[in-house]
């Protein structure tokens, strides 16, 4: 553990939630309850007592809790969704000492699986550690690690790690009673019970990534995104999934209209902009959706009403390829116009499947055609698929079990062959 350098001299600390999250599904009474339990987690290990006060009480409480956005009159402006989540001020005599701020632009949640939002209880326990005088710890199981690590379970049963307990007790000593016998909170009114945690199976059904058949796949700033319906998974450059549970499309791609339920193709342009395609329209994102979107595919040289199965930018020539069925068009980003003489036959890409789900280029520069549960790899700079293509997508990319090896059975078969296979 690490100490911040100051501690409270008193043992009864007051607190109040000054502002509540505006865009969150969490009701104010749930937020208050979660704060009670987050403080109680620390109070259980020492003789500290936390008392909630009302707005009419003076002086100002020791720990003033608020949800705010961007610049909010301290030295730590928030940065919107992701990035920094919250902060708190170490103990002291200054009015802001002990105050705890949460970024109102996060999707604050409680009781949902990791990946759905940011668990308010887990972050609150961490921040109250600062408000009581602890700095960041690198201990593996410490709540004071600086990076968000996901939900920590039932607030009523939560107990600090040994590292956190020892850090706190260094500042305030051990509790004179056992945690279970000690009253750790004294709310204004009887707080509601913590919301019940959902069962292990999430209430919202989401697709199985191991079944493949993605709508779109794209390499976006080094990470591979797999889109399926209103969901997507992210694969880090290290090859690790950000979460086995997919994230919601519209929570991440802000501004994408709610009626867009699938992304049919996606790619990252050489200038860093990200294009999502659905139907005959496409949207351009950078840090956020560009104004004036969507645009029509005709702007990229496709005929009126045409759609795309796959879009990718080929590093060898910097051109953008737009694939539909067994044909493709080519767009010159530098000249901002479609190349003449297209569409052409996709057969140029020897071994590629017709109507791929999408095509993407890896960080190593190889091109991958993906269809169903398989991928076809085209080594960097070539238009010939690896001889051992196709390969199963899930085990290689998505942490899925390898399909069982099947032994060919003698006798007739009912199979179809495509000219490229």
């Amino acid at each position, binding site marked *: 553990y690490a100490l911040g350098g100051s501690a409270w001299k008193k043992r009864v600390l007051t607190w109040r939630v000054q502002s509540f999250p505006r865009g969150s599904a969490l009701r104010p009474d749930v937020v208050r309850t979660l704060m009670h339990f987050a403080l109680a987690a620390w109070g259980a290990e020492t003789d500290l007592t936390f008392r909630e006060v009302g707005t009419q009480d003076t002086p100002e409480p020791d720990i003033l809790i608020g949800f705010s956005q961007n610049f909010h009159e301290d030295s730590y402006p928030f940065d919107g969704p992701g990035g920094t989540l919250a902060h*708190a001020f170490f103990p002291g005599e200054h009015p802001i000492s002990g105050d705890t701020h949460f970024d109102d632009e996060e999707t604050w949640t409680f009781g949902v699986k990791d990946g759905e939002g940011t668990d308010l209880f887990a972050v609150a326990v961490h921040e109250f550690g600062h408000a009581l005088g602890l700095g*960041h710890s690198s*201990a593996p199981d410490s709540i004071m690690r*600086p*990076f968000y690590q996901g939900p920590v379970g039932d607030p009523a049963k939560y107990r600090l790690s040994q590292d956190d307990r020892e850090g706190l007790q260094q500042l305030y000593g051990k509790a004179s009673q056992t945690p279970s016998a000690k009253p750790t909170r004294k709310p204004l009114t009887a707080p509601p019970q913590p919301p019940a945690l959902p069962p292990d199976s999430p209430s919202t059904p989401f697709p199985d990534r191991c079944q493949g058949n993605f709508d779109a796949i794209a390499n976006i700033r080094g990470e591979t995104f797999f889109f399926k319906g209103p969901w997507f998974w992210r694969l880090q450059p290290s090859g690790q999934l950000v979460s086995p549970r997919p994230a919601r499309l519209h929570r991440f791609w802000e501004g994408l209209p709610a009626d867009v339920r699938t992304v049919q193709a996606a790619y990252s342009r050489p200038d860093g902009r990200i294009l999502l395609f659905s139907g005959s329209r496409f949207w351009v994102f950078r840090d956020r959706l560009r104004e004036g979107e969507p645009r029509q595919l005709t702007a990229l040289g496709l005929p009126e009403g045409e759609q795309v199965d796959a879009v990718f930018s080929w590093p060898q020539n910097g051109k953008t390829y737009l694939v539909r069925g067994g044909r493709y068009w080519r767009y010159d980003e530098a000249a901002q116009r479609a190349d003449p003489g297209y569409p052409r036959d996709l057969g140029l890409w020897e071994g590629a499947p017709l109507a791929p789900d999408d095509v993407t280029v890896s960080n190593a520069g190889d091109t991958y055609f993906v269809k169903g549960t398989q991928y076809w790899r085209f080594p960097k700079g070539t238009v010939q698929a690896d001889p051992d293509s196709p390969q199963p997508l899930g085990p290689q990319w998505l942490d899925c079990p390898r399909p069982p090896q099947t032994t060919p059975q003698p006798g007739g078969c009912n199979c179809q062959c495509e000219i490229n296979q």
Partner: protein
Amino acid sequence: APEPSAHDLSLGVDWLTRYGYLPPPHPGQLQLRSPLKLRDAVKVMQRFAGLPETGVLDAVTVAAMRRPRCSLPDVLGLAGLVRRRRR
């Protein structure tokens, strides 16, 4: 591991400074940082992030810098604050 790109290096140094792993640049000095200092800073950051302490600003480390986190600096020693660590 390949050398980090100039873009990643710039972002990485900015991030390491913001969270206390590197001292803030002095306005009157050239912003030269020795590779050794940078490697040490990256190693400490990797410890906090739960990554192997290689000292290399590789893709995994840069990706970790993009993870959601608390705004407070991780290393407070530069501010002269008391730090104690369990053995």
